[in-house]
């Protein structure tokens, strides 16, 4: 037994088994949500590289698995990161049935998580680019479910992600040369440029971000948000591996300036465009773009990775609640709004169902909030939390980010703040659309009780993390120790 077998092969096998059992939707979701929870508990209690006695049996869980001459390594230091990933996955899967994310969501999601963790474990770590590409291929059925033609966003996503892989692999080869002759400036510039192009494609950095809002418009919000959260996270961890591994890259001041400029641009583009959208899915897509920008900024305010890891839990929470709320709204607006009920009643042909991509358009959501107040509250508060508004989950982290940026570069801090405010405007516009309508219907909770419980728990968690960040964020921040070469400073909210 080894940790890669436990953390990679077990979820993959369970995922494959659930794929064939997906006819039983609720069971699939239940088993799928329990598997990462079970793995989290095992990860917490199981000693690594030590002899474990269970009655007459004794065994040792090694941290290494050798495949085709290369290693998959997941040691003690990786444990907090693996726990974080599995807790977030369990959280996401638990509401998959309420979101009606599709029968393939949980099985494919489990295999995806296995591939992503394999990408963290593979040595040399450059080969992770190939595993990330495999994960992209696996994610296509989640973003383009059976019964609907693949949208332009999905096709663009596949193309851009596939473009990223060769750049990273070639960089890996060039980096070996840089290590042997660090004085060769041409080689360093070439390697850095190729690396930059690779990550621009993989992270969907401006101007290669167009697939993000397109997918958010075309695909199911819950599946899309799952991919949108974990894919940039895993790619960012892969990028941090580069910084951790190569001292010349880590010590380059230009790199952090580039990250900062890229981050600000993404926050401005993401927040600015989110404020102007008339489709709630697209607002979510642009919010993701803004989130990636915030991650880049968090990495750039060195010498700390704590901020980057601390922002992941509130962001995941906000994104999952936001997507669950949108799923409920999307399901409710399957039929077009009847403008003249008297005339419509005489019409012999019933109105056609709206296309999934049309359901979250503002014009189809007028007044829906009065019928679905919990989902409306969840969507609005989640967008505020994602933007870093006070007393909600992301606020303590964003506050540190704004403060750190303001001490050195106040203009950048102001621009970042403008991006956050703009996303909040998108949230306020969504709220206005949801509560206004031609007929002022009475407020009434129509959500299923289980859905309402999920949403209310999510809203409370967002507020609790915002009010008491010391309960959760220090643990998340401590994950930065995985990247031992990166220096660290204390997170002071």
């Amino acid at each position, binding site marked *: 037994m080894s940790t890669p077998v436990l953390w990679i092969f077990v979820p993959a096998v369970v995922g494959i088994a659930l794929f064939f059992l*997906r006819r039983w939707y609720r069971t699939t979701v239940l088993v799928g949500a329990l598997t990462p929870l079970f793995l989290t508990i095992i990860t917490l209690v199981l000693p690594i590289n030590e002899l474990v006695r269970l009655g007459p049996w004794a065994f040792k869980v090694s941290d290494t698995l050798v*495949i*085709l*001459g*290369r290693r998959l390594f997941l040691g003690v230091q990786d444990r907090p990161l693996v726990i974080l990933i599995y807790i977030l996955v369990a959280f996401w899967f638990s509401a998959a049935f309420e979101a*009606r994310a*599709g*029968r*393939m969501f949980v099985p494919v999601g489990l295999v995806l998580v296995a591939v992503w963790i394999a990408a963290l474990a593979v040595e040399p770590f450059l*080969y992770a680019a*190939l*595993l990330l*590409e*495999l994960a992209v*291929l*696996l994610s*296509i*059925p989640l973003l*383009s*479910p*059976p*019964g*609907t*033609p*693949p949208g*332009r966003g*999905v*096709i663009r996503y*596949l*193309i851009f992600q*596939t473009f990223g*892989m*060769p750049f990273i*692999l*070639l960089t890996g*080869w060039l980096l070996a040369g840089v290590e042997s002759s660090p004085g060769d400036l041409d080689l360093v510039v*070439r390697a850095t440029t190729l690396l930059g192009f690779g990550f621009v494609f993989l992270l969907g950095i401006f101007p290669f971000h167009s697939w993000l809002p397109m997918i958010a418009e075309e695909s*199911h919000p819950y599946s899309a948000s799952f991919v949108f959260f974990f894919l940039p996270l895993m790619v960012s961890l892969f990028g941090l591996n580069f910084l951790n591994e190569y001292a010349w890259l880590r010590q380059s001041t230009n790199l952090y300036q580039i990250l900062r400029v890229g981050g600000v641009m993404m926050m401005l583009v993401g927040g600015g465009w989110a404020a102007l959208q008339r489709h709630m899915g697209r607002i979510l897509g642009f919010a993701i773009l803004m989130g990636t920008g915030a991650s880049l900024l968090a990495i750039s305010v060195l010498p700390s990775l704590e901020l980057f890891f601390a922002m992941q839990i509130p962001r995941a929470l906000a994104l999952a609640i936001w997507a669950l709320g949108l799923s409920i709204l999307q399901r409710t607006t399957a039929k077009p709004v009847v403008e003249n009920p008297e005339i419509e009643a005489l019409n012999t042909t019933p109105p056609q169902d709206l296309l999934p991509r049309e359901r979250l358009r503002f014009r189809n959501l007028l007044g829906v909030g009065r019928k679905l107040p919990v989902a409306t509250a969840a969507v609005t508060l989640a967008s505020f939390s994602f933007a870093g508004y006070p007393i909600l989950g992301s606020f303590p982290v964003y506050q540190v980010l704004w403060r750190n940026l303001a001490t050195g570069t106040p203009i950048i801090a102001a621009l970042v703040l403008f991006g956050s405010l703009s996303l909040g405007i998108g949230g306020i516009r969504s709220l206005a659309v949801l509560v206004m309508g031609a007929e002022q219907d009475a407020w009434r909770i129509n959500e299923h009780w289980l859905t309402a419980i999920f949403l209310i728990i999510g809203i409370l968690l967002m507020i609790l993390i915002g009010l008491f960040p010391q309960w959760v964020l220090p643990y998340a921040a401590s994950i930065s120790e995985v990247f031992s070469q990166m220096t660290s400073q204390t997170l002071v909210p």
Partner: protein
Amino acid sequence: MSKLLDLLPLLATMLVAATSIGLLISRDWRWHISLLGIQFAGIAALTSLSWPLEMAITKMVAGWMSGAVLGMAMASVSSNWGREERFWPSGRIFRILAALMVAITVFSAIPEISKILPQVSELIMVGGIILIGMGLLHLGLTAQPLRISIGLLTMLSGFEVIYASVETSILVAGLLAGVNIGLGLIGAYMITVSEMEQEYE
């Protein structure tokens, strides 16, 4: 025999150039699949200059598997392929001209790229860059899932031919083969997905 082996790089480069242009201008999906199969034979021949033959063959096998999966998917759907491709023959002339421009760009860029990657022989570089260029051109001209898959497979093959000169790991070979087959499978999925039964609710 040895003269033929000496000519292998040149023949393989000419083969992949011809098939990639053929893929760009052909209009029948059966031709696409056949040309893709021939292209992967050329790619395996080019890779065999850097890798042992038994490893290089994996490129061809993975490519053929992708082609077979894509072909089966096309055969199984009630295709409107003919209607989508109705802009021919003016489109064909445009594509030939575009391919020529890519070829000219490749040949003018080769000396510079060879300076960056001196380990890669010139013919391998020409073959690889032509495949990348034609693949990119293919991707830029269409949104049809079969053509997208073929464009990605072509572009990626070009990279693999060049990368094989600098990386000989078995794991990388296996993972790249996995990516090729995965692209074929996802292409087949995208071709057939709209005719599948909906699984929501």
